[in-house]
Every structure is written in structure tokens, then in C-alpha cells.
């Protein structure tokens, strides 16, 4: 019996990570076949079409943004951070699951990672690219984004090294580099497989180029394992550091609600939580479409669901600690912030977040739920929405009402979504205002209902 015919499932009978009956050859044939030999299914073309449409919409939006400025997001004083920063934090968080799977789980010798690590890493790279886009889009003058890099130029000025936004640049670019290297180093043997299976000259050349002359000798494998371990060692601190630094973007500000000492770990847990949700969101359809149930088994879904449950509980603890901190600090501004977050004009966002991020994952305690791909898929989508709402709540509710009522205002009041009944103003005028508001209503329109904040100011806005 040659080593290529070893029954993989038989190697570790207690952990059926791969369906019985597979050998290295059948696994290679199946996995490489998807790329080089099998025709792409119709759903692949459909997926590409959806993706292309999405990119076109993005392009249109970005061009409009550059033409009009970031006011189109409804950001203004006092809510100067909005859409872009929320998206940045959300995307960068999603990337963390890929790094956790590739680095920490490798060091911990978790065998189950190997079925999902490649596309989790690919997801990380795309997530970091999406994340990196938003701070640049958020700049008033995006064409001079490179000012934030410390390069010797005719300005003879360095960027502000005390600013967490600069730390972000270093954290995210390091993260992107290490993720890319990790992904590529891991791919080298697979490129060699693809090279050997490619059916035409172009494929052989292209895969062969990236395979770097891989022959699969013992020495190659030894170096491969060593390089992977070194990269895992480098990437492990990044799992923790990148989102910690993102949380410092907030902590350095003077705004209430951004100072809980639990912020860095709570951000990291949230990042892994949303990242695993995104891995599930991607895994479940891919597994179905490409018939990969033999390699991504129920057990993988089960384990990922458990990671989601664990990190979800940490995130829930974070929310509770935020409220506790506000009360225990006896700081009136912190207290008002949490009260306003729960009952103020943004209460639907807060309670939707609690529903999505704390209540929904509790279903994952149930074995049946963890093993049902469709239910898991739905839960993963809900968690993704919830984690977006979390960043929305942190950014917007803290900013829109801080220390002085004179600097309150801005951003969406959910009551603007429907015409206001009446106030001391004539009905007609009220309706006109309501209409004009609805027309201006985007995610963050300018107007606010001050009444709801408990302010005595007349409701003339």
C-alpha cells in the first residue's frame, strides 16, 4: 500500500473530520478538480454576475462620493464618524477569523482548521482590502491619503505618531502583509498540484510560476512546515493587536462610552465572533454548491458554531460591562450615554443589536441547531448584521449627544422615518418638513428629535 492510498479518516478514527473512504489521491482530485478540470457550475457564473453588479454599484457610489464629498453619508458635526468608520471596523473584524484559524489554531494543532483555513485566509485578505478602503474614502481629500505614511518628503513633516489613526495604518498594513504571506505560503504545494493537473500550457506556466518549483520532497515539506510555524508565530499577536488598536481609535477620543477598559478584548472577541459568522456565511453555500460535504463535515460546522457561541458570550459580557461601568463610574455623562443608548432616539439599533448578538447565538447551545446548515447560515447572517449594528451604536450614539446640549444633534432619528404627528407648528409646515426630511433621509440625515433627548429646547428643527 503506497502512502497515497492511506485512508485518511482511518488515521484518526475518533475525529471524523473527513468522510470515510477518502485517500490523499481522491482528496487532491476533488479539490484541484474544482479549479482546473470540472466545468464551473452555473451558480458560479451567477455569483460572479452578482459580485460584478455589486462592484459596479460600489464604483458608482465612490465616484459620487468623490464628486460630492462625505456629506452624502449624512456625517456632520457632531456625528463626524459614520458609515465609513463603521464599515472599517466591521470589515477589519471579519478578517480576524481567518487569521485565528490560520495562526492560532495551527499552533494549537487543531486539525479541523485545514478544511476551512484556505478560504478563511482568502476572506481575511478581501476583508482587509475592503476595510482599508473606508478610511481613505472617509478622507476629505482622499487623493492625499499617503500623507499618513511616514515618508521623507518635501513637506519635511512626519505624521502624528501619537495618533491612533497612524497606529491603524501600521496595524492594518502589517496585518494585510502577513495575511497575504500566510495565504501564499500555504498555497505553494497546492499551486504545485494545480500545475501538475493543469490541462493547458498557460495554466501550467501560471501555476508553475507561483509554485516556486515545488516538488514535494521531504526537504520541501520540512521547510514548508517551518515557514508556516514562523508565520503563525508572527500572525498570532496580530489577531489580538489589530482590533485592540482599532478600539484605541475610540478610547483616545474624549467621548463618553468609548472608555470602558474592556474595550480591546471586547473588540477582539467581537472581531472573531463576526469573522466566524462570515466564515459560516461563506462556507455553507460553497460546501453545498461544490459538494464538499466530505471535507467540510458537520463536525466543522459544529466547531465553528461553538467558537461563535463562545465569542458571542464574551461580546455579551462586554455589553453588560459597558452598562455596569457606566453605572459604577457614577459619571453623569457615562450614565446618560448608556441610558440614551438604550432609550434615546437610537434605541431600535441598540435593542436590535442585543437581539442579534446576545439572544440569537443562544440557539447555538442546541446540538440540532449547530448541525443544521440552513439554520446556521441564517444565524451567521443575523450575527453579521448584529456586529455591524454594534459599531453603529458605538460610533453614533456616543457622538450624537456628549457633554453639552448645545453640541447635541445630528444623525438619524428613527422617528424621522414617519411623518411627525404635530407640534406647536402648523400641521402643514410639519408635513412639509417631514416630507423634506424623508427626501433627505439616508442612513444619517442631519435632523434629530431633541425632545427625545430630554432637552427643553423647542422642537424647531
Amino acid at each position, binding site marked *: 500500500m503506497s502512502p497515497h492510498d492511506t485512508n485518511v479518516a482511518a488515521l484518526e478514527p475518533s475525529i471524523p473530520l473527513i468522510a470515510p473512504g477518502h485517500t490523499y489521491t481522491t482528496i487532491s482530485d476533488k479539490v484541484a478538480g474544482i479549479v482546473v478540470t470540472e466545468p464551473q457550475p452555473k451558480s458560479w457564473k451567477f455569483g460572479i454576475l452578482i459580485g460584478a453588479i455589486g462592484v459596479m454599484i460600489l464604483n458608482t457610489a465612490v465616484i459620487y462620493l468623490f464628486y460630492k464629498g462625505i456629506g452624502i453619508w449624512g456625517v456632520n458635526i457632531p456625528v463626524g464618524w459614520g458609515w465609513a468608520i463603521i464599515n472599517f471596523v466591521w470589515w477589519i473584524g471579519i478578517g480576524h477569523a481567518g487569521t485565528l484559524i490560520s495562526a492560532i489554531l495551527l499552533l494549537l494543532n487543531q486539525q479541523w482548521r485545514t478544511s476551512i483555513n484556505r478560504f478563511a485566509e482568502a476572506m481575511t485578505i478581501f476583508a482587509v482590502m475592503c476595510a482599508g478602503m473606508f478610511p481613505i474614502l472617509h478622507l476629505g481629500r482622499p487623493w492625499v491619503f499617503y500623507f499618513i505614511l511616514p515618508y521623507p*518628503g*518635501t*513637506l*519635511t*513633516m512626519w505624521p502624528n505618531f501619537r495618533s491612533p489613526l497612524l497606529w491603524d495604518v501600521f496595524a492594518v498594513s502589517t496585518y494585510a502583509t502577513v495575511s497575504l504571506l500566510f495565504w501564499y505560503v500555504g498555497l505553494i504545494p497546492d499551486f504545485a498540484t494545480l*500545475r*501538475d493537473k493543469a490541462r493547458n500550457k498557460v495554466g*501550467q*506556466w501560471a501555476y*508553475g510560476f507561483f509554485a516556486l*518549483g515545488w516538488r514535494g520532497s521531504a526537504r520541501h515539506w520540512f521547510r514548508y512546515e517551518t515557514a508556516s510555524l514562523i508565520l503563525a508565530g508572527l500572525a498570532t499577536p496580530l489577531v489580538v493587536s489589530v482590533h485592540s488598536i482599532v478600539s484605541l481609535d475610540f478610547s483616545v477620543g474624549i467621548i463618553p462610552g468609548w472608555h470602558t477598559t474592556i474595550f480591546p478584548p471586547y473588540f477582539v472577541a467581537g472581531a472573531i465572533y463576526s469573522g466566524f459568522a462570515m466564515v459560516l456565511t461563506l462556507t455553507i453555500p460553497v460546501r453545498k454548491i461544490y459538494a464538499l460535504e466530505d471535507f467540510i463535515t458537520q463536525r466543522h460546522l459544529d466547531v465553528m458554531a461553538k467558537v461563535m457561541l463562545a465569542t458571542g458570550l464574551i461580546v455579551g459580557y462586554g455589553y453588560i460591562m459597558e452598562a455596569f461601568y457606566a453605572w459604577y463610574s457614577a459619571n453623569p455623562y457615562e450614565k446618560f450615554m448608556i441610558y440614551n443608548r438604550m432609550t434615546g432616539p437610537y434605541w431600535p439599533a441598540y435593542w436590535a443589536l442585543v437581539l442579534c448578538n446576545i439572544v440569537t447565538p443562544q440557539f447555538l447551545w442546541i446540538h440540532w441547531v449547530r448541525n443544521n446548515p440552513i439554520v446556521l447560515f441564517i444565524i451567521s447572517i443575523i450575527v453579521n448584521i448584529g456586529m455591524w449594528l454594534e459599531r453603529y451604536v458605538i460610533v453614533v450614539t456616543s457622538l450624537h449627544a456628549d457633554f453639552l446640549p448645545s453640541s447635541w444633534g445630528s444623525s438619524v432619528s428613527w422617528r424621522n422615518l414617519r411623518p411627525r404627528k404635530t407640534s406647536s407648528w402648523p400641521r402643514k409646515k410639519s408635513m412639509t418638513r417631514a416630507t423634506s426630511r424623508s427626501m433627505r433621509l439616508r442612513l444619517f440625515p442631519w435632523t434629530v428629535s431633541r425632545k427625545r433627548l430630554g432637552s427643553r429646547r423647542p422642537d424647531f428643527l
Partner: protein
Amino acid sequence: MAQIFPKKANDLVKVLAAAVVLGACGLGTMATGLWLSPFITQQDVAKQQVVPFSHLHHVKGLGIDCRYCHTTVETSSFAGIPPTETCMSCHSQIWTNAKMLEPVRASFKTQKPLEWLRVNDVPDFVYFNHSIHVNKGVGCVTCHGQVDEMALTHKGQTLRMGWCLQCHRAPEQFLRPPSEVFNMQWQPPADQSAKGLELVKNNHVKVEQLTNCSVCHR
């Protein structure tokens, strides 16, 4: 299975890798050189003006003070470009038929100002004020170069931010006594660093504020 790549492919990849690195360095060097060259900075590049006015002749030859034409330099952000009347204060008497001065006379008759092309300019996001510099002891020559040597006017310095900051970080190296601001021949004394510190102190130049962003970008 046959080899996909010929044996020389290994060397080719190494050469390509070296070429990419060296090419990037070369491109960077070229771009930097271009960025620092007068082609971009316009330093020392004279512009074709409507009348080929010579500072060399008027300042060095005839000894006219800067402020005779640039009247508002001590009181305003803008040094002032003289109206045609200033030219005519002499040229209604001398060189009254010179062909070179025909546009000046035409401008005087039609009351349509001469269209000088601006030589020294900073971007719109820079707030620059002549009067504060002149009153604190920055000489004309320090920023504009030896204008009295310019047969055709050109930028004496790059006017880049890094250049501004040289002085804003250490003004004592450049300041001169207020009486010498308009002196085109003034040379810094041997003990400029000591004298300069004295000038900084006497003129109340707040060096610690000079590099605040909002000093120039308001």
C-alpha cells in the same frame, strides 16, 4: 512528466526579481529628482511677461526701494502689485516713446490694468501674510532671492512647505534687524545664531507656536 520550465528559467526569475527591485529604486530616484527640479518647482524659471520688467535695472541700477511699488508689504498680507500709474509716475517723463513700454501707455489710456503673470505663489490652503514676516525681520531676499540681480523676475526659492519650515523651526538663523529688511546687500554677521536669538526675543517671535498647523493652514 516533461519539465514545464526550461533550465534557464531559474536564472530568468532571479534577473527579473532584481530588475523589479532596481527598477523600482530607479523610478523612485527619477521621480524624486523630477520633483526637486525647477521643471516642477519653477525656481529660477523666468516667465514671459507682458512687459519685460527688469528688477536689476530698477532696483540695483536706479536704487528704487521695494516699497515704492510694493506699497502694502508692511501692512497687508499682500505685498501689492503696482498699478500702471506707478509706472507712469516716471515713464510719463522718461522713455515716453519707448516701444517696449507701449503696453504700459495703452494700459494707462484705456484704464485696463497690465496683466502680470504671478511668479511667487503658494497654494490656496496656505495662509501667508507679508506684513508679519516683514515686521518680525524676515528680509525680502530671504524668500525672494537677489531680486535686484534679476533681469527677468523668477522665483528665488521653491516655496515648498519643507522650505518654509526651515525658518519656522529655527527663525534665529534667518532673522535680521528690522532696519535691514529691505537691504538687498545685507549679510548675516558671524554671530548670527546669538544675534538671531536676541531678535527672536525682542520681536516676540513665539517659536513654539510657529509650527502649529493652524499658523499657516487656517
